[in-house]
């Protein structure tokens, strides 16, 4: 079943932290999936040239020796939260996201990269949204937009790495959440693996980020890549994209899964069930179901209303 939520602030000055809004929406959908919960947030101000990296690891120490040849790491800033470790890395000129991830995963550290980017933070774990708050304190997170997920696992393992959101591996600052089932996942996965892409999990939802990354590498814009996915992905899918560009909302051509959207001058909010919007965002606003086969990007840089 799963529940997905997304929130984009259009006011600039936020009466409530974006993290709190998204957490409230997720809590309202908690019973759609007790298997895991997660939130990905785009932060306000980028730390230019500094990548914030979160990895999952149960080991108490943080061994960053495998990436030290790729840039400067700040051991002092490294923090442990739940089963993740977060640290910063200032990459040397020319170092790519792929090189960093490859070094962390294969270079002796044996870590799973949860997210990477100048503005993206992404946390997830097995259990309820309330447990997520207890571990990560997401309700104080500030930023223009965030997406969230409550998981009911149907096919792949229940653990942190298989929970959502998924960072779009190889693409800094982009994450997705998905409700549904990508039925041509194995075909797509074989296609990409032949071309050298390394999948981090067995979860079909991971392929959405892989697909978007591939399209962007081929020169498509994010919104075009989302539109392309309507034909390339089979099955039932509503997925949301968090990117510094904005909040992406995509529905499959048949509208197999429910999704409700509210768009006002102050915010854009999306959830699998309208009651999540009503719980998190009081007020009188219209909530509609987007047309099936639509891919829309709500830009993050809308100027604040006067």
């Amino acid at each position, binding site marked *: 079943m799963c529940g997905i939520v997304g929130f984009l602030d259009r006011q600039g000055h936020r009466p409530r932290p974006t993290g709190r809004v998204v957490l409230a929406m997720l809590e309202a959908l908690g019973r759609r999936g007790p298997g895991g919960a997660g939130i990905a947030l785009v932060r306000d101000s980028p730390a230019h040239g500094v990548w914030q990296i979160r990895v999952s690891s149960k080991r108490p120490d943080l061994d960053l020796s495998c990436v030290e040849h790729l840039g400067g790491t700040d051991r002092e800033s490294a923090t442990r939260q739940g089963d993740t470790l977060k640290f910063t890395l200032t990459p040397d000129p020319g170092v790519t996201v792929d090189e960093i991830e490859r070094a962390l995963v294969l270079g002796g550290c044996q870590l799973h990269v949860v997210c990477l980017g100048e503005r993206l933070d992404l946390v997830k774990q097995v259990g309820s949204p309330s447990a997520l708050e207890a571990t990560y304190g997401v309700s104080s997170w500030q930023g223009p937009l965030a997406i969230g997920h409550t998981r009911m696992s149907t096919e792949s393992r229940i653990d942190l790495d298989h929970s959502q959101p998924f960072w779009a591996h190889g693409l800094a600052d982009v994450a997705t959440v998905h409700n549904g089932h990508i039925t041509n996942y194995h075909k797509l996965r074989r296609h990409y693996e032949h071309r050298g892409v390394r999948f981090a999990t067995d979860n079909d939802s991971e392929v959405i980020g892989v697909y978007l990354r591939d399209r962007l590498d081929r020169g498509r814009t994010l919104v075009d890549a989302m539109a392309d996915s309507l034909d390339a992905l089979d099955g039932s899918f509503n997925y949301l994209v968090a990117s510094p560009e904005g909040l992406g909302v995509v529905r499959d051509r048949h509208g197999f899964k429910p999704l409700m959207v509210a768009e006002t001058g102050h915010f854009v909010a999306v959830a699998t*069930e309208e009651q999540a919007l009503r719980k998190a965002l009081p007020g009188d606003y219209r909530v509609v*179901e987007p047309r099936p086969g639509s891919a829309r990007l709500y830009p993050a840089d809308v100027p604040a209303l006067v």
Partner: protein
Amino acid sequence: MSTTDDPTLTLDCDTLATREIHRLIRARVAEAGSARVRLIHPAARHNLGVAMPEGVHLTIEGPAGYYAAGLNDGSTVEIRGGVGWGLAESMRDGTVVVDGDAANAAAASIRAGTVVVRGNASTRAGIAMKGGTLIVGGNVGPAAGFMMQKGRIVVCGDADDGIADSMYEGTIFVGGRIGQPGSDVVEEDVSEAERGEILALLERWKVPAPARFRKLVSGRALWNFRKADLHVWKSAL
């Protein structure tokens, strides 16, 4: 206690579980023979006003979630807001009026009665209807009236692709533009008598009528299997 001096029962969703709300309404009907009920603070909760019996007049003061007034058993349910999936699904009889928009599958499989959506209805409005009337004041999304078996749909606005796809029987009237129609759809002329009937229906429910209507019915070509169509079936399955 007669219907006229029966005071309105106000129930608050903030303090009552859905099951308790329905139990209280049923208790009132059992005691008084009828019940006028206001439901406040619905906040898009699911399954509100489900299987309400005759004699109930329920007003939901705000948006309702999925399956609002589903399995309606003869009651009148008014919703002062929008609704989610499955409005009045499988209604036996009664009246359901929505002031706002409806999500997927409004009036799915209803057997009789009337469903009015003053705003837009999303995908698959009136899917598999087995009777009754669905009126949509605005537009309908793709596949409205899909596999409809009986009854009537009146769309005052535009109809998206796939309208009336594979319908067995029934009639669909569309006031606005029609996208790509579904399989086996035939357009017929609207008689003066039909036109008068529809205008009276819209006036009764205070839904603004468009200048003209088009009428869609089943071409009945899918009723029976024809050997000549074998290749189509093979490719479809």
